[in-house]
Structures are given as C-alpha cells and as structure tokens.
C-alpha cells in the first residue's frame, strides 16, 4: 500500500498580499509528493479550524506584510486548545531573521527566509512531521 501522503495546510494571514512565494511553495511541496491544502487568507481561528477539519500534519503560514509575531502568539495557544499538539508549525515570507528565535520560543518549529528551494522545506517537513510537538 502506498505510504500515506503528508498533508500540509498552507495559509496566509488575513489580511495579506503577495502570493507568489506561497503559491510556488504549494506547487513544490506537491511535486515532493505532499498533499497541500492552499488556504490563502485566514484569521488565526480560521486557520486552526481548517487544520483540524483537514487533519493536517503540517501548518505553514506565509507572511508578507508583517504581523508574524502577533500571528504566532495567537496561533500556538489556539492549536493547543484544540488538542492539535502534534502538528508541525512553520512560517515563512518576509520575516526578519532577528525574529526567528522569538518565534521559536513561542512554539513555531521553524522559520524560513524567502526564496528557498521548496525541496529544502520538503526535506525539513519529512524529517520533522509526526515528531514535532507543541508543549
């Protein structure tokens, strides 16, 4: 039997602009054999609800117009509240590297700068999905 596909919810915060990066990543993760639910714009609550409904292993949030700290600060507790403690949470986009550590302290597992090859992110997901926890 074929191995179960990794399911990724790829979302942009509500409200944001510039979809090139996230759309490319959606395509590249599909190329890498993953199932991508491209959610586009969502409030934190909408992203969490979609993640629960779609039973995803990974949530990726793309941020192009700042607000990443606020999104993370809300997203992680909201996921825990829904009992989604085994989901891998990644962020990417225009996020300053000096904010990577603060984001990780909040519980985000990894943050990626813009323009990376999708494979780099796919490799990371394969390695960490199912193992990462939100405690």
């Amino acid at each position, binding site marked *: 039997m074929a191995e179960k596909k990794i399911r990724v919810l790829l979302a942009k915060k509500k409200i944001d602009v510039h979809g090139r990066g996230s759309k490319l990543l959606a395509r590249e993760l599909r190329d890498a054999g993953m199932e991508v639910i491209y959610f586009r714009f969502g409030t934190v609550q909408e992203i969490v609800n979609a993640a629960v409904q779609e039973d995803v292993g990974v949530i990726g949030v793309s941020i192009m117009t700042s*607000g990443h700290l606020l999104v993370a600060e809300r997203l992680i507790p909201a996921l825990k509240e829904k009992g989604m403690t085994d989901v891998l949470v990644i962020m990417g986009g225009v996020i*300053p590297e000096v904010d990577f550590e603060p984001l990780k302290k909040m519980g985000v597992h990894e943050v990626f700068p813009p323009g990376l090859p999708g494979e780099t992110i796919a490799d990371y997901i394969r390695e960490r999905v199912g193992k990462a926890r939100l405690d």
Partner: protein
Amino acid sequence: MAREDGGENFRKAKEAWEKGRERYAAKLKPGTNLSGIPIKTVYTEEDVKDLDLDVMPGVYPFTRGLYPDGYALTPWMQQMVFGFGTCEETRTKMETLVEQGMEGYFGHKVFNVVYDIPAMYGIDADHPEAEGNVGQCGVHLSTPDDYDELIRGWELETTNFSLITGDNCLPGLAHIVAAAERRGKPPDALRGNSMNWYPRTAVQDIPSWEPEQGYALMVDLIKYCTKHIPPWNTTNIFMYGISEAGATPVQELAYGLAWGKSVIDAGKDAGLEPDSFVGRLGFQVGVQSNFFEEIAKLRALRKMWAKITRDAGCTKPKCLHARVHIHTSGNVLVAQQPLNNTARITMQIMAAVLGGVQSIHSCSYDETIGIPTELSHRTALRSQQIMMWESGMKDVADPLAGSYYVEWLTDQIEQEAWKLFNELEERGGYMKGLKDCWVKQAIDNSAYQRKKLIKSGELPVVGVNRYVTAEKEEHEPFRVDYAVEKKAIERLRAFRNKRNAQEVEKSIGQLEQACAKLKAGEGELMPTLVDAARKGVTNGEMMDVMRGAFGWVVME
C-alpha cells in the same frame, strides 16, 4: 547605410573575428535572457540591417523617448513609495523626503503614498480583521480628518498625490476631492494619480470585485476625472504587478499592453472619446535583473503603445505616449547578505534611466527582511540622486540607440511581445484572460520555471545559489509601533462621534442606490462617493456598501 567600400572593410574585420574564435566557438554555450530569447556573444550591422532606425526622440513611435531632448528640460521624478502609521507619522516622513530632495518635474513635490492593507481592502481600523495590520505596511487613511491632514499646507497645484490604494481607489479619490473642497479648492486644482488598477486581479491573488463590475468601476473613475479633474492621472497600468507575479519581461510587456488596450476599449464602450482620456493612463513597469533586456523592453513599450493608441483612434501626441513609472523589482532582491541588494538596485535604476522613463521608485536593500529603515530608504533615494547628478547618464537622450545589440534586442522583444499580445487578443482580450485565469496561469508557470532555474543554478543569484554563506543576518528592520493601531482607532471613533449621524445614514442609503444603479449600467458613482466623503462616510463604510453591491472574490 551605403558604404564607400561596399562593406569590404566590415567583411575583412568579420573574417578576422571568425579566425580569432574558431578554436573555441563551437564549444560556447548559447545564452538566453529572462524572456528566453537566444543571445549571441556579438552583434553587428548585419543584425540591424532590416530595422527602421530612422527615428528621433520625441517623435512617433517614440522608441527613443517621449521628449525631443530626453531629460534636458527636467530629470525624471523621484517617486519613492512611503507611508506608515497614521497620517501624522506619514506627514513627518513626507517632510523628511522633501528635505532629502525628493522631487518631481520642475521641482514639484511628489508623494507616492501607500495605504495600509486594511485601507486597501476597505476596512476601518476598528474592524476585527484589521488587527495587527493598521499602519504597518502603509498609512491608514479613512476619515475626512485623515485626508485634511494629508494635504494640509501643501500647495495643491504643485504637489502630486499618488494614492497607492487597493480597491478603495474610488473612495480614496472621493476623499481627497472633498478635502480639497474644504480648503476652498475645486477638484481640478488637484494633481496626482489614482491607481485604478482593478485588472491586476488577473495576476494578484487578492479579493476584489467581480470582473465586469471591476471594469465598470474603473471606467466610472475615468469618466469623473475626465469631466472634473482633467490633469489627474486616472489609471495605472500595473506591469510591475505582472512582473512581480513572475512574468518574463516579454510577458510583462505583452500582458501590460493588453491590459492597457482593455482599458481603452472599456472607455470607448462607455462612450468616451479616446483623446479625452487615454493621455491620462500611465504605466508602472518593473525592472528585473537583465540590464539590456529591461532597456529594450522600455523602448519597445513606447513604440508598441504608440501604435495601439493610434489604432484605437487617438490623435493627440500626449495620448500616444507611454509614460512610465519604474518600480525596481522587489522580487529579485534577496534576504541573504541584504547590503548586496544595493548593487542590484543601482543596476535597475541605471536600466530605467537609460530606458528613458519618467519616474522611478527604487526599492530599499532590506525589503526582503521587513519594512525599510530610514537608512535603507534614504540610500535608495540617494542612489537615484547619484545617478541623476554624478553619472552623466541623463545628458543624452536614448544613449544606447544605434547599438547593434540594443536595437536588435528591442526589435526581438517587440516581435515576441506582439505574438503574445495578438494571441491574447484573439482569445478575447485581457479581461477575458482575467476572468478565465489564463493570464494568471501563464505567469504562475513562468514563476515556477524561474524558480527551477534558480534551484538548478542555471540562473545565478549571489547569496542564494552562488557564494552562499551560513552567516546569520542580524539586520534589524524598521518596526511600526503597534500603538499606532490604538491611535488610529481613537481617531476614527473621535471622528465618528463628531459627525452628523443622520446625514451619514442618509448618505450611505444614497450610496447603496448609486451602486445598484451603476451595477445595472446606469448613472455615475463617483459624484455620490464625493458627496458621501463630504458627509463624513469613512473609507471602510463606503467599501462596505460597494462590496455588498459589486461582489468580493478571489480570481483563481
């Protein structure tokens, strides 16, 4: 060109050249540019012998520039995009930019003001979805008070307000007209630009009006300005958006021209004479990374637009002019070793200047990391000023004319772009391509191909696939204090408390009726919006009514 020697000297030189390279010539890997046009290593008179090079600057078809002496009368406009916080923070920045020497034609002030995302989407600061976004990536402008503050003290006739709105561009214009009125000025005292770029939804994944309604609103703004503010630049053909979404330079050119033609067609269908409005359309064009390709693209753009507008029935020279504002590409900037971006930006400014454009926004080197700092933003402006005053680049109009390579490339790009343009026209035109999403699909595919080339290393990008280092980037971006959100909400509430609630309610009712009529193809919306602005209806309240009437969808 007739030669006294019958071309004998050239033949000899070419033979010697062939001899000099025969050892390795077969091994050379053929190059291409970003549009996929094959590039040779050397160009000669043979490559341009069939081209019509009997052209002068300022003369149809304007390949060599719009003006007979290039930048001799006035250099290009420095139009840096800016805006953050509430209008107080943005006012301070305006004053700083004026001090730093940012100016437009003949010393006029030019303010290229970008709205924040909530204002662009048409929600006010107290809307739940605005949280965390107010004043972050642009200025939050919503109430008449905000607009009074924006224009306060600036002489309207010599100040250009370019309002980088989203789909709130009709409300934005209505508010600035009402603000001018409160200063005792008629609408036609205003100078500036509306974006009026609904057709960008063909390439950007953002919610906006249903396509027919989007075009109807665009034409409504054009009609209003044609009648009431003739000097206002009504419509921005946003080739930059096409470019940033992933288009090749040829695609950008072809789809941008098709977009422009779709605006002309829509205006004509609404009964406007081309000469009455086409001269107030303008282009915003991207400059990516291949220097000569971008210069050739700009030359081809002028030539092609001159033909399109003439074929559309324009006769005034001004209506045949492709006036170009350059936005240097943000997408080609990289997050790794961000100071390196200054080299990319400098090259892009040079391409714009040698391409003979009217106005430039140069990106800041740290835009891949966050909102530009004062230093990076000033450096981007200074880079333009160095090109303007130190480099000698503006001394001669179209200085690359006659270059075998540049002339050949201009022609190639033109030919390739006509192919795509005609293909799109045959399939029903730009608006159809927007509705059926082929434009988006074609550009998405180019973005994907580009990324593959970067991944494989075939397209070198320093810091990404060449000279990669593991060093951490400790660059601290500009941070907009989240307190501005609270301030914006307080301003909004204070304004709502002081306005006449009954008048506002009545005005919103009239707006609903005017929207319903426009949707049915009757009447004009802009005058009702201006009246609503006078009565104190906010940006978000206007947009709320409009979303109800004209739909709000993402084109997939």
